[in-house]
């Protein structure tokens, strides 16, 4: 049967079956975007307040503050990671 499309100028199914690519790209993209949904507001708020509190006591580069939210079915994990420079003695530096 496949001889007909070839004879009459049609392309083969494998050459034109781009839908599976679309499906896979969407699944990967949407899994990522759904994870981000609703987060920016809360995380921005937390970032600002955490920066303010920690900076009162410790000097650090704001760029080194990482906040991550992993949403699970039962619980979500809020991960806060701050890299603080050491003094010569190896202790965190208070401002």
């Amino acid at each position, binding site marked *: 049967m496949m001889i*007909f499309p070839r004879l009459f100028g049609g392309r083969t199914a494998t050459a*034109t*079956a*781009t839908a599976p690519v*679309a499906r896979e790209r*969407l699944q990967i993209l949407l899994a990522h*975007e*759904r994870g981000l949904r609703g987060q920016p507001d809360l995380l921005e708020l937390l970032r600002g307040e955490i920066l303010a509190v920690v900076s009162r006591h410790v000097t650090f580069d704001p760029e080194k503050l990482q906040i991550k939210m992993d949403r699970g079915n039962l619980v979500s994990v809020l991960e806060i990671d701050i890299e603080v420079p050491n003094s010569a003695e190896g202790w965190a530096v208070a401002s």
Partner: protein
Amino acid sequence: MAKVLVVTSGKGGVGKTTSTAALGAALAQMGEKVVVVDFDVGLRNLDLVLGAERRVVFDFINVVQGIANLSQALIRDKRLENLWLLPASQTRDKDALTDEGVGKIIAELRTKFDWIICDSPAGIERGAMLAMRFADEAVVVTNPEVSSVRDSDRIIGMLDSRTVKAEQGEQVQKHLLITRYDTGRAARGEMLSIGDVTDILATPMLGIIPESQDVLRASNVGMPVTLNDATSAPARAYTDAARRLMGATIPVLVPAARKGLMNRLLGRRAA
């Protein structure tokens, strides 16, 4: 009890206005009292698709601002006595619509109609948010195409978080309406299939509207698709979708592929 239904999509050009007109007309044909409300301030088109463009005197914003009352702004369809249109403003600033103002009008419409169908503008800005704000149910119009599916996913997320229902801890009932579907292309793997789209969006299917010249033909003459040629494939698909909105259990069928010339000559059954 009146139902507020938003027709939305995120992406533009997928068929929101066509679907609003077709579903509104189909429900009106079933005897329901329907008002279709255009939320696309500045770019109104529902009046044009319904063939009422020369009858607009007052608009939504006039009513919000108290310049006109609702009965002055509502336009009754000339063919279907149960179908009414509340046009959007073509000239005003879209910021003239407020949460409070829209809420008041929707509440008033609830007392007069069985269905209030809100035609959302494209995008996720203020107009689109207001169109979905007071919805009980939503029709998410999606083309089987990557950008449309992505935007629909985003809109579904907003229906679950930014509506009055969501804020009250309830859910807006969501329906997926796939438009411009080409069964032949999907069968050849050139287009996302119905299964692909429903798997990805995980939303119950309201209907599948086949790609068809009848849609353009109807809008050319200002007729809802269901009214222009009730026997056409898209008209039947919209009518079935409207029946499902009314609670009927009708299986959603994938439209039959149109036969190409070669297939017809060879007498083959299309895939």
